[in-house]
Each structure stands twice: as structure tokens, then as C-alpha cells.
């Protein structure tokens, strides 16, 4: 052996396994570190006590009953898209196209509300726009999957481009449905009659949004963990060759799963249009399609963990907007803080999978 070769000062070894509590402890440490760094950044900008700032964030989320429900509504929206992405990601299919799938679902819903709103009652409209949004999302997600299955076309780049086709398509329909003329917006659809809108449940405007998504959360968890389809998805995700060997048609699973993924994202568009904004614009998805990718990834495709991650991100966003308006800053502070926190959470994942061993500490066990 080369005598000058010494053990490196620092080396990395893969962990065989890690207790669940230990993993969560590491992630929690990452989050706390992130909040600390964010606090320093906030302090440098506004020169205010960070504790006060965090309590203002709490105020922004839950200060009033209305605010609380808007927070719940937004968590539901982000969660819904994350749920849609879960099956695709579990299959190792990088669906970056959620933003576009949400938009086409929104367009389909708006189309049904505008063209059928005159002669159909609300319950029929809701069913029709639900189906239309599911189909639109499934088609939008199915196209890249079909090409991936047939020709091996790179799905990350294909779905990414489909987002911008969908955004332009939305601009097109906004121009077509413009109301009033010259406003460059669609306006509130069926404002007077409120046909096709989600009805309030138990006196809460957004109760139906939240309930729908909660049902989806459970359903997707069961689908992925206990159904035959879920098993097939997991096998295809681990290894295409194994899947083929045990007689799974990889192409069929690929296309079916992506259509399902697109359909759930389309459903998020339905909820956003019929259940929240009652209008359609290029900001209907508002970047949630991209944020949801991070939600689904950090939660390791577990839909219940997604509730927590989505909740954290929405909390940060609402809180930062509150700080911004309270201290006369602009809303983009929230994106900055979100970015910092995500960097830390992403980094902390490393320590759940690897051990860092310093020289001189034998084995580090």
C-alpha cells in the first residue's frame, strides 16, 4: 500500500437503514436551521425582531376566520396537485407539466360554465365541468407519456414545454371570452346567477374544496399502497426490466398512470376555477404546478406527509405576504424565504441517507 496514502479527513458512507424518528429529527433540524437563516435575512432587511415577524406570519394565516379558510383553500389546491404528481413520480416519470395540466382543466371548467351556464342547473354543471377537467388533464398528461412509451422521448423536457403551450392556450381563451370587452380578463363567470360555483357547505364557502381534496388524499394513498395498479407503478419505477420480466406491460402502465396524474391535476384546475376564483387567467395555476413538484418529492410520494409539506409552504407564503403588507415590503419576499427553506430541507435529506465520518473516529458508529 502506498505509505503516503492517509485516511481522508472526511468521508461519506451510505446508511443501511435509518429509524423513522431519526430521519424526521434530521429533517426537523434542517427546517429549524432554515428558519434561523430566514430570520437573519428578515432581520437584515426589516431590522425587526424575528419573533415578532413570525407571530405576524401566524396572524396572516389564522388571524381571522376568513383568512384561515383561505389558507385551507390554498393548502388544498397545492395538495391536490401534489397528489396528482405522486403516481407519476413513484413511477420515476418526471411530470414537470402540472402547471399546464391544471390550466387545461381550468379552461375546460370555464368553458362548461360559460357555454352551458344558461340552461343547466348547478349540480349538472358541476358534474359536467368535473368530467371535462378530468378529460382535459388526462389528455394533456397522456400525450408526453404516449411519446415516452413509443419513442422514449424525454418526458422532463416534453412536459415542461407543454406548460407553455397551455399558458398560451389560456391567453387565447382569455382573449376569446373577454368580458367586459377590452378588459383583457374573463371577469367573474356567472357572477349574478352563481351557477356552476361550488355551493357553500356547513356555511363555509371553501368546505367542498377541502373535503374533495381530503377524500383524494386518502384515495391516492390507498391506490398507491394497496392496489394492483399501485404495485405495478412501484415495480416500473424500480426497474423497467423487472417489470417486463414479471409480465407487466410497461407502456400500458406508463400511459395509464400519466393520464391519471394529468386527470388529478386537471381536477385541481376545476377546483381552482369552480371552487375558488370563478374566473380563468394565466395565473390560475400561479406557479403551484411547480411548487407541487417539490411538495410531492419532499413527502416521498406519501400523500399524508404531503399535507404537512403543503401546509408549511402555504403558511410561509401567506405569512410573508402579511409581513410584506405590514412593513411595506413587496410580496416576493415570500418566494425568497420559501427558496431558502427548501434549499435547507433538500440539503437535510442527504443526512438521512448518508453518514459523515471524520478522520480518527473509528467507523463513526
Amino acid at each position: 500500500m502506498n505509505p503516503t496514502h492517509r485516511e481522508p479527513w472526511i468521508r461519506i458512507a451510505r446508511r443501511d437503514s435509518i429509524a423513522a424518528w431519526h430521519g424526521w429529527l434530521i429533517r426537523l433540524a434542517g427546517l429549524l436551521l432554515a428558519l434561523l437563516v430566514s430570520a437573519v435575512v428578515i432581520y437584515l432587511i426589516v431590522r425587526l425582531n424575528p419573533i415578532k415577524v413570525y407571530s405576524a406570519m401566524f396572524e396572516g394565516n389564522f388571524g381571522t376566520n376568513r383568512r384561515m379558510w383561505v389558507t385551507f383553500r390554498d393548502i388544498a389546491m397545492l395538495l391536490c396537485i401534489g397528489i396528482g404528481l405522486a403516481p407519476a413520480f413513484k413511477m420515476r416519470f418526471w411530470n414537470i407539466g402540472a402547471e399546464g395540466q391544471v390550466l387545461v382543466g381550468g379552461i375546460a371548467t370555464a368553458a362548461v360554465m360559460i357555454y352551458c351556464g344558461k340552461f343547466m342547473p348547478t349540480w349538472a354543471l358541476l358534474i359536467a365541468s368535473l368530467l371535462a377537467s378530468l378529460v382535459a388533464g388526462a389528455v394533456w398528461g397522456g400525450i408526453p407519456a404516449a411519446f415516452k412509451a413509443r419513442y422514449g422521448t424525454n418526458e422532463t423536457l416534453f412536459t415542461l414545454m407543454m406548460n407553455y403551450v397551455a399558458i398560451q392556450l389560456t391567453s387565447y381563451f382569455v382573449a376569446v371570452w373577454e368580458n367586459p370587452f377590452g378588459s383583457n380578463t374573463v371577469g367573474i363567470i356567472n357572477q349574478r346567477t352563481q351557477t356552476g360555483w361550488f355551493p357553500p357547505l356547513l356555511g363555509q364557502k371553501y368546505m367542498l374544496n377541502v373535503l374533495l381534496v381530503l377524500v383524494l388524499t386518502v384515495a391516492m394513498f390507498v391506490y398507491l399502497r394497496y392496489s394492483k395498479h399501485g404495485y405495478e407503478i412501484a415495480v416500473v419505477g424500480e426497474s423497467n426490466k423487472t417489470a417486463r420480466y414479471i409480465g407487466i406491460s410497461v407502456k400500458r402502465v406508463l400511459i395509464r398512470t400519466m393520464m391519471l396524474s394529468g386527470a388529478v391535476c386537471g381536477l385541481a384546475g376545476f377546483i381552482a376555477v369552480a371552487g375558488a376564483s370563478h374566473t380563468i387567467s394565466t395565473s390560475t395555476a400561479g406557479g403551484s404546478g411547480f411548487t407541487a413538484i417539490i411538495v410531492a418529492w419532499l413527502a416521498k410520494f406519501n400523500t399524508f406527509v404531503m399535507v404537512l409539506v403543503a401546509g408549511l409552504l402555504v403558511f410561509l407564503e401567506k405569512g410573508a405576504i402579511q409581513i410584506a403588507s405590514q412593513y411595506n415590503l413587496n410580496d416576493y419576499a415570500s418566494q425568497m424565504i420559501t427558496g431558502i427553506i427548501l434549499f435547507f430541507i433538500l440539503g437535510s435529506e442527504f443526512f438521512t441517507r448518508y453518514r459523515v465520518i471524520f478522520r480518527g473516529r473509528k467507523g463513526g458508529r
Partner: protein
Amino acid sequence: MAQVLSLLQAAIVFGTVILFGAVGEILTEKSGNLNLGVPGIMYLGGIAGLGGAFLYETSVAAPVPLVGLIIALFCALLASVLAGFIYSFLTITLRANQNVTGLTLTIFGSGVANFLGGAMNKMAGGVGQISVSATSSAYRATFPFLSEVGVLSSLGFMTYLAIVLAFIMSWFLRKTRKGLNLRAVGENPATADAAGISVTKYKYLSTCVGAAVTGLGGLYYVMDYIKGTWANDGGIEKLGWLAVALVIFARWKPRHAIWGSYLFGVLFWLYFYIGGLTRSSQELFKMLPYIVTILVLIVVSMRRKHENQPPASLGQPYFREDR
């Protein structure tokens, strides 16, 4: 004729922004790193350049354009390299997922840039907009001997810099040993590692240098495209994603990115020069660059010609002990 000329000029200015982005991203992707943080890096490069120039111009009574130019360039490069470093550290050393890290970088960059941009707009005097006219004029200065030559009459030096960088990148990737090593890392890191090439070093360097070039796109956008101001309208983000599209369109070849970027510019501005379009059909026209990119992506995957494929390990992490 005058219309064609003005379309070409608009296309070249538009194309230059995404050409910087694409050339930087090609270098990054050749190492196997799919950095979806391109819009974020462009944002950071743009805002850092603007911020540097703004501080300089407000602290000096009579700002010298050339000094402003150098300060802005330095700040933009520094910020973009830092952004590239964050991405590299997370994906290479900490082995985080590339797609997720890239998207986070985009969120972060757009947040920082729009936050600071909004703050600077406010500092510049309430409703008034920030303006760094001296520095911007240096960026927009044309070469005197070209001022009579039709299309070239209004182009600043960065237009030419982008073309030169694309050619240098092309030469580097095809003709130099380091370039070949880099491509080996992107195609098959395990083999490159076995051949004694430091995969980590190549990935870090190409990602950071790539980010620097990408950031220049943001600087050019701020200083030339919108003439030394700032607007929170998401303009950079749109162009950043088009730069990612251009990488695919050019099939990872910097030389093809040059004409590709101008073609994208023509496609993007075409609606403006075709008479009688309604506003709705204009929106359909703006879809063209993305549709064309999708078509290229499909055709390339159908024909399976080796030299047109993405780097084989694109998006895949590499850990030596995982094999």
C-alpha cells in the same frame, strides 16, 4: 423591407437573451446536470447587475458609463456563479434531486430579484422607476463602423459576445481534451471516473461557469432589452424557459443555438408584423417556439441518431459507491 429589417432586429435582441441562457445551460447539461434553475440564475444575474450599477450611479455625481458597465458585469457574474454553486453543492455534494433543486433555484432567484427590484423601484422615488441610464447606455452603445449596416446598426456589444461565446463553447466541447472529458462525464460518469477524470470537479466547474454565462442573459435583458430598468412582470422567467427549450432545439450544440435563438426571436415577434391578426390569434402565434421545440424533441427521439441525443446521464446523479 423596413418591416423585415425591424423584425430581424427585434429577433436578434430577443434571441441574444436566450442565446446566453442556452449556451450556459448546454455547458451545464453536458456534464449531466439538468439545471432547471435557468430562469432563476438569469433573474439573479440581472438584478445583481442592475443593483451594482444603481449603487454606483447614485453614489457618484457624474457616473462614467464604462465603470458602470464593469461593475454591473462583475456583480452579475458573481451572483450567477453563486447561484450555480448553490445548485452544484446541493446536487453534487449533497446529492439532492436535480429537478427539484433547479425548480427551487428558480423560485428563489425570482423571489430575490423581484423583491430587490421592487425595493429599488421604491428607492428610486415612489412611483418612479429605477433607471441606470449611464450604464445602460454603455451596454447599448453600437460599434461606430457598423452604424450604417442595416440590421446591425442598433446592436450593443453583448450581441456579438453571445455569438463569440457560442463558438468558443462549440470549439471547447469538440476540440479540446477538457471538453471531451466533460462530455465523457455527461455520457457515462462511471467510465469517466474509471479513466481517472474527476467527475465532481468537472460537474462543479461546468455548472458554475455555465451559470455565469446564463446570468449574462439576465444582465443583457436588464441593460439592453428593457434599457436599464426593472419591471416585476415575469419577463425574465418566460425567456429563461425558452432558453431551456433552445437547448433542446439546438440538440446540445452551441453553434446551432445561434441561429436557433434568432429563429425563436422571429417566431416570437412574428405576430406583431403580420397584419390583421386578432388578439386571440396573436396568442396562438406566441405558442410557436414551444410547439417547434416539442416537434424537435419528438423527431430526435424517433430518429435515434446518436449525435442528436441528450447526454446519456442527463438528470441522473452519480455516486461512486452506488454501482
